């Protein structure tokens, strides 16, 4: 589903990604952990070209993102993204948030989009909030709407950029629950997270990133119980 080869990314003189190699298989759940400033979010944002790539190759669903012939808008319809700050559209109701992209990009009818949107809100447990505005919801509810909004495009792959970091602790669980459900249904997911419990329980593989590279990748059991690198060990000691 994703192949990344020697990905570099610089902001001016500051090289943030220093040669990333990785593969993500279909239906796989990968959690990306690591200290802040290690390039986790930048790496994730390169996977749908929210950051342009300085050098290297990123191949998503068979399309090389660097290829000029690749239609990035088409790729993005296949790649859902969930942000730390939710980024719901505040001037639209919950159901309108979910319906917008299917209507305007996929060009499906309003009825169809509404039906699909209502089913997705049901799925994230927010059917009764359909006609409210984002500002009337709690953070956890907003993030669940953001997940439903991304799912409305029926993506093949979902990216999560620290989806619970902006939430009050008591609201983290409801969002992780929705993500767990999604993983169970076989969605391919790349999740940048500080939730080690989630990574341990749900991930098929964990990437530990530091200083702009993937230092270590392994199954959660191996990473959490028997980390190979000293840096991974240090990091886990601090966060666990």
């Amino acid at each position, binding site marked *: 589903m994703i192949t990344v080869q020697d990905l570099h990314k610089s902001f001016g003189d500051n090289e943030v990604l220093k040669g990333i190699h990785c593969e993500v298989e279909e239906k796989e759940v990968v959690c990306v952990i690591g200290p802040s400033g290690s390039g986790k979010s930048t790496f994730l944002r390169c996977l749908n070209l929210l950051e342009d790539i300085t050098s290297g190759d990123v191949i998503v669903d068979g399309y090389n993102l660097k290829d000029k012939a690749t239609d990035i808008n088409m790729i993005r319809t296949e790649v859902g993204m969930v*942000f730390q700050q939710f980024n719901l*559209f505040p*001037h639209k109701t919950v159901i309108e948030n979910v319906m*917008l992209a299917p209507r305007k990009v996929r060009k499906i009818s309003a009825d169809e989009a509404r039906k699909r949107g209502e089913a997705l809100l049901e799925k994230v447990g927010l059917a009764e909030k359909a006609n409210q505005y984002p500002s009337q919801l709690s953070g956890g509810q907003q993030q669940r709407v953001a997940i439903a909004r991304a799912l409305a495009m029926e993506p093949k792959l979902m990216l999560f950029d620290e989806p619970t970091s902006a939430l009050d602790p008591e609201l983290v669980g409801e969002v992780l629950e929705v993500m767990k459900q999604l993983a169970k249904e076989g969605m391919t997911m790349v999740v940048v997270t500080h939730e080690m419990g989630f990574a341990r329980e749900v991930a098929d593989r964990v990437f530990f990133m530091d200083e702009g590279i993937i230092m270590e990748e392994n199954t959660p059991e191996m990473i959490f119980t028997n980390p190979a690198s000293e840096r991974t060990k240090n990091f886990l000691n601090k966060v666990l």
Partner: protein
Amino acid sequence: MFDFGQVIDFLPQLRTGLYYTLLISVVGLLAGFVLGAIFGLGRISKNKFFFVIASIYVEVVRGTPVLVQAIWIFFALPIITQYNMDSITAGIVVIAINSGAYIAEIVRGAVDSIDKGQMEAGRSLGLNKHQTMRYIIWPQAFKRMIPPLGNQFIISIKDTSLLSVILVPELMFQGRYIASNHFNAVEIYTTVALFYLVINFSLSLLLRYIERRLNY
């Protein structure tokens, strides 16, 4: 001493003046809004050429008095272009160009103030840049534009009174004409002032209503 009753005799002229004041304000500000939207986007454009053109426009207009602009467009421009504009057209052009520059800054500020995450969320869903601007950024930016736009509309409506110097038969022009012929400055200029006050206060109320309607 003062005879406000006589104002009734001059209402036809004042009504003509009011008509031109409103005509120039409405048409000038509509055109100004279009100019403002275009050049406002120019001021946030990554296209260097568009950015420079927009910046020059804004700086030239902001850096010169509207009275000078009016006189230049009516008296100087025809000499350069060999094309004579009637005073009403010239008046509309002055208001459009002048308000356009200020509105460009209002548009730039409002669009800039929308969180970057909104554009990213739109793009990540597969909407192209144009669609994201149209469905997500603009509606939010527009709401933030309303108070400063209202301010600018009111300033521009008052600026139309300066167009009397280029012989636009608007409210102030009519007032001056009447007062100098009938020696009733107090009655006429007070009435003229009231006309402007009523226009602008109505506009204020309308904008407040629109802003409330757009609440979310």
